[in-house]
């Protein structure tokens, strides 16, 4: 017999309790991982090189306030600015349902200059640029709705007072978000009672070194005007956009804290029960020469073992489910597309499991340390 075997034998002596303990840890860690992955999905800004050179210009008051079209020529003249496109959220309904993909009005000919990472066949891009009533969609939306090139898409306006009748001429992939639909800004520019406004300006800097100065220059150019702007890198924009999720983040963190706290209570209670019911045996071990530190080590190892088994099941299960199946993407109708367990999240969950194993063993270890052999021997079985 080895010490490890002895610990294992003790850990699973009450098989039902051991199984339930492992499952409670597993389910809680699965939930924790799911929340962390969800939080990451909602708050992850893009971080590739193309996005680093993009600048987003929005109304300084809020994202809901529009910007005058006349700003474009001023921005284009700022040194270091390579291209500028209007970028306006449409927010319509498709096939009478609240769609889960964004629709944006842009300047089509600048699509590949500014959003170069989106890949599509050249003839489709040319068709998009040529036809002001055309649109392109990301591959995920095309697959979700079974859209084919040449199909007519009717987008019913909910925010803007027009409906769009668009002809699908291209399907792109590998963009920032392969769910979006892009159409000509001209559709909005030419609508009745147009006031000549756009949602935001998206600017491509000539080089990464130009980004900082361009941001400063754009901000300065419209300071103290009726439409003061806030220019920032795409990453900063995403982060500020994310900051609107502040309360949700707090809510998720609160739930995570409750999960971890409950987990500690459950595990500590289980370990205390497991130790209390064999107080007498621990007294025997003390009597035959086992030291306090060795008994600590047994309890810690047992507690840690149960937590580790729960972690393997819970974190491993989440990893298998989220990283190797399309379950979440399917269930969320492609709203959550990057729902994956990263090594960092796995490490966080494993750290929680480790701490759990340690914390859960503290109370029983202390009671064993305080117990004298004589007291322990008097304990009823």
């Amino acid at each position, binding site marked *: 017999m080895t010490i490890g075997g*002895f610990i294992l034998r003790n850990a699973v002596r009450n098989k039902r309790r051991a199984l339930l303990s492992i499952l409670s840890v597993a389910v809680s860690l699965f939930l924790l991982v799911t929340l962390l992955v969800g939080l990451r999905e909602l708050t992850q800004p893009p971080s590739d090189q193309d996005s680093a050179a993009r600048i987003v210009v929005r109304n300084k008051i809020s994202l809901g306030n529009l910007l005058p079209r006349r700003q474009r020529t001023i921005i284009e003249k700022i040194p270091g600015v390579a291209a500028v496109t209007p970028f306006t959220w449409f927010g319509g309904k498709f096939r009478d349902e609240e769609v889960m993909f964004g629709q944006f009005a842009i300047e089509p000919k600048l699509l590949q200059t500014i959003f170069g990472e989106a890949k599509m066949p050249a003839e489709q891009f040319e068709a998009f640029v040529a036809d002001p009533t055309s649109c392109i969609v990301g591959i995920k939306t095309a697959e979700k709705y079974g859209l084919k090139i040449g199909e007519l898409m009717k987008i019913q306006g909910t925010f803007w007072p027009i409906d769009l009748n668009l002809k699908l001429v291209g399907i792109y992939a590998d963009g920032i978000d392969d769910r979006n639909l892009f159409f000509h800004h001209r559709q909005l520019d030419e609508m009745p009672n147009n006031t000549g406004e756009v949602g935001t300006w998206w600017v491509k800097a000539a080089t990464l070194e130009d980004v900082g100065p361009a941001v400063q220059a754009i901000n300065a150019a419209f300071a103290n005007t009726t439409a003061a702007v806030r220019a920032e890198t795409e990453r900063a924009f995403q982060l500020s956009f994310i900051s609107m999720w502040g309360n949700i983040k707090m809510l998720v963190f609160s739930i995570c804290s409750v999960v971890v706290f409950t987990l500690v209570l459950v595990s500590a209670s289980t370990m205390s029960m497991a130790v209390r019911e064999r107080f007498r045996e621990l007294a025997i071990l003390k009597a*035959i020469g086992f030291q306090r530190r060795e008994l600590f080590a047994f309890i810690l190892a047992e507690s840690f073992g149960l937590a580790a088994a729960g972690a393997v099941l819970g974190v491993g299960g989440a990893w298998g489910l989220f990283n190797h199946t399309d379950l979440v993407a399917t269930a969320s109708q492609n709203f959550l597309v990057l729902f994956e367990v990263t090594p960092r999240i796995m490490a966080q969950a494993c750290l929680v499991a480790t701490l759990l194993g340690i914390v859960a063993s503290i109370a029983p270890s202390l009671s064993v340390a305080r117990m004298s052999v004589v007291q322990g021997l008097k304990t009823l079985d």
Partner: protein
Amino acid sequence: MRPNDPSVPVNSADSSEPPVVRIKELSKIYQQGEINVTALNRISLDIARREFLTLMGPSGSGKSTLLHIIAGVDRPTTGHCVVQGVEVTGLSESQLADWRNQNVGFVFQTFNLLPVLTAFENVELPLLLTRLTSKQRKKQVLTALELVGLADRTSHLPRQLSGGQEQRVAIARALVTDPQLIVADEPTGNLDSNSAHEVLDILRSLCSDAGKTVIMVTHDPKAAAFGSRNVHLEKGELAP
């Protein structure tokens, strides 16, 4: 050959050697709230090598307390307890644990085997604290189990053994580190008369054949008759 008749005393105590246990002016006072309860009152006692000493007395007379102090699992309030030349009252918790592992074998009334371990593994338990290899441990465990007549029950769990067999496994566990001193707290209290007889025979042969010193607490005069010397305790004092 093991003597089967309790009327045959062991009487093999060696008086030429220094005593294995020397107790001098030993007192143990428990504090229960504001009341002091004297469990042992200035006891002095020598126990020789190869002696089979039985401690008798009514409940609360202090016999188990005395046994616990000799075995190093309890501490006296005052006095000295020297076992094999070591003043056990002066050892730290950690030193006491090591000392117990090497010098004392315990046998309890309720056997106290670990239910998840086989007979072999229960006996092997004290050896996990030594530097013996697995092969050496196996040899010692089998020797101890053979000594108590259970070499064919090595893979049995405690629940698969009778009470008498369980107690014999407990004796094997007490013996396996080859301690000089075996302490037994009412080892026959939970056994039928036949099993009790077997267990007492084994304890007696440990003195006569293996040269161990056995101290046994018992309420049973028949069990006490197996000892080479009987000591009575009354209200924490040695009865004349």
